[in-house]
């Protein structure tokens, strides 16, 4: 039984074009599922739909999001928020803007635990300290007393990761968590996320456009083009032989420094045309198979 089961989720701009076209995917408990695609493909949108944080200009037009046995879209708003708050968390993309510059770090981690989940301040602080140590921050007390601007980007991302795991969530949406980071810092952060995910047994929906990262962190992945899922398969199968021409083209575009002749191939126009035709066929009412 999957922990997260998205079935035929369709989302569009109010009175505008569709952004997600009958997206379906399954994430088992404690599994890492990658969402891959170019910018604008809709991968972030899926994560936002699950967490209930779609922008106001966007509306859901159909489908179901089953989280831990409940269809989130059929719940009343307050119940949905409680359910999501209790079981999910987000690791956002930009560590610069994700932390409030006016508050110290400590409260930013513990406030949610105390105010919404009813922990005591002492318990919450202890938990925060444990987590900061787990993400390898050397002096948790000093960091908890600091303001975000006093810390580096990598440090801030660690704090956001710690914060995400604070309430022991069953599902975390990681929205391009390393895109804004340096390549050496990225490796440390990915290692951290992978380790914590395994230790805490959390399911992870990992949004990224980097296939290299996917091959290291995820067990399954879905490839998106313009809101349509064009491939959904295991990572091992995908990298051995991608099933869809568009996926193969993405793989060919990824740089491979060990073999400079391979990699960095632009996606051929024919492949783009073909996948656009698929999208058009979907919009015209054809069944998505």
């Amino acid at each position, binding site marked *: 039984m999957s922990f997260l089961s998205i079935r035929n989720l369709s989302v569009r701009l109010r009175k505008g074009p569709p952004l997600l076209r009958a997206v379906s995917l399954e994430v088992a408990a404690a599994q890492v599922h990658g969402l891959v695609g170019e910018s604008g493909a809709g991968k972030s949108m899926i994560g936002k739909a699950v967490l209930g944080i779609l922008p106001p200009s966007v509306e859901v037009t159909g489908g179901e999001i089953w989280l831990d046995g409940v269809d989130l879209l059929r719940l009343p708003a307050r119940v949905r928020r409680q359910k999501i708050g209790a079981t999910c968390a987000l690791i956002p993309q930009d560590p610069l803007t994700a932390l409030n510059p006016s508050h110290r770090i400590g409260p930013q981690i513990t406030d949610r635990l105390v105010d919404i989940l009813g922990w005591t301040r002492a318990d919450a602080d202890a938990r925060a300290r444990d987590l900061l140590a787990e993400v390898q921050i050397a002096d948790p007390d000093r960091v908890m007393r600091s303001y975000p601007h006093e810390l580096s980007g990598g440090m801030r991302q660690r704090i956001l990761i710690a914060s995400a795991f604070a309430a022991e969530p069953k599902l975390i949406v990681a929205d391009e968590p390393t895109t804004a980071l340096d*390549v*050496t810092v*990225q*490796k440390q952060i990915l290692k951290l996320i992978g380790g914590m995910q395994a230790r805490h047994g959390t399911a992870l929906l990992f949004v990224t456009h980097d296939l290299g990262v996917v091959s290291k962190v995820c067990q399954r992945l879905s490839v998106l083009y313009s809101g349509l899922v064009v491939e959904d398969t295991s990572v091992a199968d995908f990298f051995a032989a991608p099933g869809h021409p568009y996926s193969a083209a993405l793989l060919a575009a990824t*740089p491979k*420094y060990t073999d400079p002749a391979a990699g*960095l191939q632009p996606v051929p126009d024919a492949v783009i045309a073909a996948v656009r035709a698929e999208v058009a066929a979907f919009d015209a009412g054809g069944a998505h198979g």
Partner: protein
Amino acid sequence: MADLYQVQDLHLSLADMTARPLMGAAPRIEILKGLSFSIPRGEVVGIVGGSGSGKSTLGRALVRLLQPSGGQVLFDGTDITHLTEAGLRPLRRRFQMIFQDPMSSLNPRHRVGTIIAEPLRLHRFDAIADRVARALDHVGLPAGFAARFPHELSGGQRQRVGIARAIALEPDFILADEIVSGLDVSSQAQVLNLLERLVRDLGLTLAFISHDLSVIRRLCQQTIVLHHGRIVENRPTAELFADPQDAYTRDLLDAIPLPDPAQRWL
């Protein structure tokens, strides 16, 4: 002259605004700590380093957006280290820059055609409309795009407009500062292939700044690795990848996730 750029013992300090006292000037932090290297004409040189390595600062020093505090920068034999703006102006069309963020490097209130034509007008070129059309053609954008605003284009297209703006002046040298860092793989591949073609067709000399070694490999003949404001390696690219000498270079290489689940990485 075989070398387009000759840099000798380059030092550059910037004011540390976070440590500014109430009265008086802010203390200076040295970002570039004595760099010496040269860029041969017609070559593509990669400048690689993590954040804080000084690579962006070095790039801006080369195109004189910043003034060095010590050392010497020679462009085609001319000492540009301490030239005033007036002295630099006639030279400016010979070294151009492409910026990282396609959102903030194009003025949102100007149309694409205007953005490309501006520098041409400043340097009093003739037949501006033709040159704009040609520049768009070189980067593979339809001529009709000249009428569009930046927000009507995708990230990859905006980046190509930035390239068109740079090549329209027919410069000798272009500095590309992390121009593919914000792009997804297919746009990245397109832009890099475009640069490769332009270097070949227009005989450009290119300095390519990046924090990602994997994109350097195909494009650059020579690679300079910066760490904390110093050059730790400066070698032909193939050699660097085959046998990295410095520990930091090895770290950078190890940090690259290859799209291969079998790679022992994490």
